């Protein structure tokens, strides 16, 4: 059921908390304690805004185990406005066609059920930015 594993990642999954490097000021997501840019220790927490734009997108039809009920679902790589790139599903698209560069914002949604009778796993997805405001 991996309760402890998901619990460890709750700040990242629900709140997009990463790190900022004290040496080079790189914003880091996900947090990794060593700056991937300059290699220095980076443990200072940083709260991302949740805003970004679509870097690339596709649709998943052939889903892995645990995601079959959700298929087909839209998948994207999103460039957060502070710099890092993340992978996440898109949501609340309605009839909107996705485009590279489309502004999006982070929301917390159910990712999947962890096993048949297991806990639900929640995490970040991204939805189109409505009217330019979040």
């Amino acid at each position, binding site marked *: 059921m991996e309760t402890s*594993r998901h619990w460890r*990642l709750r700040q990242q999954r629900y709140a997009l908390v990463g790190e900022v490097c004290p040496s080079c000021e790189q914003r880091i997501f*996900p947090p990794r304690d060593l700056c*991937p840019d300059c290699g220095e220790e980076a443990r200072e927490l940083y709260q991302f805004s949740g805003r970004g734009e679509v*870097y*690339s*997108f*596709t*649709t*998943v*039809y*052939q*889903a*892995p*185990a*645990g*995601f*079959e009920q*959700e298929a087909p*679902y839209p*998948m*994207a*790589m999103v460039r957060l406005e502070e710099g*890092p*790139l*993340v*992978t*996440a*599903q898109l949501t609340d698209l309605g009839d909107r066609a996705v485009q*590279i560069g489309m502004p999006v914002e982070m929301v917390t949604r159910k*990712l*999947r059920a962890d096993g048949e009778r297991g806990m639900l*796993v929640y*995490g970040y997805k991204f939805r189109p930015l409505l009217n330019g405001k979040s």
Partner: protein
Amino acid sequence: MASPIPEGIYIVGVGMTPVGEHWETSLRHLALEAIQTARAEAGGLRPQLLYVANMLAPALSGQSHLGTLVADFAGLRGAEAMTVEAAGASGGAALRQAYLALRSGEAETALVVGVEKVTDKGSSEVESALATAKDADYEAVHGLTDTAQAALWMRRYLHEHGAPADALAGFSLTAHRNAVTNPHAMYRRAIELEDYRKAGMVSEPLNLYDAAPLADGAAAVLLVRGDRLPPGLPHPPTRIAGSAMSTAALALHDQVDPLWMPAAAESAGRALQQAGLQPEDVQLFELHDRFSVHAALSLEAAGFAARGRGWELAHNGTIALQGRLPVTTFGGSKARGDAGGATGLYQVAEAVVQLQGRAGENQVPGARVALVQCLGGAGGTAATHLLVQELEAA
């Protein structure tokens, strides 16, 4: 006439099963088949070391401890054996370990066998197993599959480089054309550009012809140090003149530039440098083509094309069998078939067959220098080898 270099590492035997849905053949039987063929080419030589390349057996066969499983089953108890896993680069990584071991002087002979058995489980379980090669906490947890990741990658590639929608078609066309004359290939029908343009989408913009079929198979390569080559070998041994590996970020989204593969570039550069050669000396390139976008990026990383122009080599005949830089000469992953962690060894075995002049209708004329590269994940791992044929038949 050239003589063997005493400290050189030579390939004295290769063996491959066809890649396919081998309902009647188990994981251990597939490995044995490839091993027996490779050993027979070298007069039954018994290796001291055994490296097994595999990425999915624990998940799909409930089987770990493959080094000993294979040693035991193949009549090689007593060999020093272990599994080498580096996702899709497992085959090349295993060869690298064997090369390093023989170069150390601690052993004289090594057998490297890649084996994968994927058809005993259904597609959703296979997708989950494949997902373990990604970042579990930040890619797989979101329901990302290999195909979806390649689709994201491909869309960005076409977008950033202003390439047409059918830019990557040439890789599939070339692979399929070469497989027509490969009796061991999984798919042996040539396809045309119209087939590619009309193909059904798998995960847009990636279509049916942009993705290699994943199936069962095994490929084995037998190595001997130059000062211990057995006499009377039927085929003049091929030397590993360059061997290198490198790593980049695990997740595609963590690459400094997702459209540049630093591990592929670094390992190719070092392999060429070790051999004292340049990209223009390479006469064939068995590149990683599990997805068509891999092939384009691999050509760019190795220095055969400028950034964003790798796809053009697939449109202008450069990569055709008769072209300046043939790739996937027996069909590659796309048409010969992809056998997961074993693919890296299929590439090596096929390159050896080319360099030893045994390639029949698929022969690249006069080929003496081959570059071979396999990748793990989205270029997170790259294992590159440079093979040269200096020795000739007596």
